[in-house]
């Protein structure tokens, strides 16, 4: 009988599939994974500490750098948390604008997910097709906010600009092309035998484990738990829209992939409804020039970001700067599942699992 010794390899922080700066210390026996130890913090920028020395409004650009793949979502969560703290309301039109850009951000994030899954599995072409379609969303963001990737579009009390006229035809043609795009992904990626073999049954996360480890977002829904904060605990005006919460069957990588592709369709539905119902009016409400929430108030506000539950815990001390801002980052908590789902798999499965758990390191390391 051959005697084998386990050896350790570091996947990351410098690695083509490390999604930024993730380091997965992997203990291997041949090609079999015995254990994975995740090391975070390579892109830690002390955002929470910075928040304590910035005014409430000044923090918005920092929030946009958390989940930089869908920058409207972290900024949305932050401004809504501050609005809760102040007890102010937002004009109707601003709410609809927020929903439209937030859902577009979600689509953009999921397209990056599909693209990076494809390239992590070695299908370079799949990535290009997803990025090609995401590019149209980036163009729309450029129209609305002037910024493509990390847009500080949200304002406390509304948004910074109204949509320009050119935005509507762009978003409508994008929504019109969405079914075509999705069928193209199904043809190129979902229908591919190799991709299915690499994803099906790989990285199975049971529903009980997912709940116990606080896994949220598409990763939780892939495990068969229909828990979507937009549905369960609606924030903003999400209770006005009709959409399905897609769920998976067994919580493997394949389910995590299909759930996200279905979510793209559902986001498209929400945007369609929002465009239909959008009223005229102000896009920015009346907000005091200097934002000073009453002392001792605290709030925990959570939204369904593209990656999962994104929460802000903000404590005020009566000054114009927050006493404490804590970001509950979905990617941070979701990465706890990586060792869980990778043990006992193959080296190549870790790559699949990192890709399908879809972390964004700017958010998890903060």
């Amino acid at each position: 009988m051959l005697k084998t010794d386990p050896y350790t390899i570091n996947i990351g922080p410098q690695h083509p599939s490390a999604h930024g700066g993730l380091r997965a210390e992997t203990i291997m026996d041949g090609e079999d994974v015995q254990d994975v130890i995740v090391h975070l913090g390579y892109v830690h920028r002390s955002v929470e500490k910075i928040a304590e020395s910035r005014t409430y409004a000044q923090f918005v650009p920092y929030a946009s750098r958390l989940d930089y793949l869908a920058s409207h979502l972290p900024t949305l969560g932050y401004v809504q948390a501050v609005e809760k703290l102040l007890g102010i309301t937002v004009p109707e039109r601003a709410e609809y604008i927020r929903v439209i850009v937030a859902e577009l951000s979600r689509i953009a994030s999921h397209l990056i997910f599909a693209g990076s899954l494809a390239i992590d599995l070695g299908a370079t072409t799949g990535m290009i097709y997803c990025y090609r379609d995401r590019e149209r969303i980036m163009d729309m963001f450029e129209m609305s906010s002037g910024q493509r990737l990390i847009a500080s579009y949200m304002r406390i009390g509304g948004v910074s600009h109204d949509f320009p006229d050119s935005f509507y035809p762009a978003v409508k043609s994008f929504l019109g092309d969405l079914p075509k795009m999705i069928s193209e992904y199904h043809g190129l990626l979902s229908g591919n035998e190799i991709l299915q073999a690499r994803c099906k049954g790989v990285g199975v996360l049971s529903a009980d484990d997912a709940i116990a480890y606080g896994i949220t977002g598409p990763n939780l829904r892939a495990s068969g738990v229909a828990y979507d904060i937009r549905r369960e605990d609606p924030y903003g005006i999400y209770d006005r829209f009709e959409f399905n919460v897609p769920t998976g069957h067994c919580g493997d990588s394949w389910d995590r992939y299909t759930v996200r592709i279905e979510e793209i369709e559902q986001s498209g539905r929400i945007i369609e409804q929002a465009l239909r119902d959008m009223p005229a009016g102000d896009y920015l409400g009346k907000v005091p020039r200097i934002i000073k929430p009453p002392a001792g108030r605290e709030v925990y506000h959570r939204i369904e970001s593209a990656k999962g539950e994104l929460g802000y815990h903000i404590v005020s001390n009566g000054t114009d700067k927050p006493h404490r801002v804590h970001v509950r980052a979905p990617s941070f908590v979701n990465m706890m599942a990586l060792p869980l789902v990778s043990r006992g798999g193959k080296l190549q499965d870790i790559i699949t699992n990192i890709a399908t758990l879809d972390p964004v390191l700017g958010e998890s390391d903060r």
Partner: protein
Amino acid sequence: MTSHDNSIGVGAAELMAALRQLAGIDEISQDEFFVYLQVDVSRLVSVMRSLLNDWGMNYLANLSAVDYDSEFEVVYHLYAIPDNGKKIAVKVRVPHQQAQVPSLVTVFPTADWQEREAFDLMGISFSGHPNLVRILLPDDFSGHPLRKDFRKEA
């Protein structure tokens, strides 16, 4: 027209009354979003366990630590999956000198990394945690930056 109506809504009074029966609560209060339970450190684990087992609060959404000048406050935000309308925030306070809180890893596995983060950035030691090491900062970093007395260097 209020937009953020994800408050706890009706049933809050009943929830408050029922929660008063829960052993080990020092103080109970509520605002429009959460029911806040102030719990003594020594009873934290038992309160959490009964919230999990008897109240179905199976989802520890958030764990954050706040530095008030002489004390630290650790706040746990609890929800249920599937949602049962209850939103409970449990708070414990510990003095600066003895910043030690029992770990909840055995009750909520998700507390693992969140406690490590609170340890890393705020310097709260979670007793009973299986692997309490820094998670975001480098291992050789000294100090806990989110403390208010942490000296910032430009």
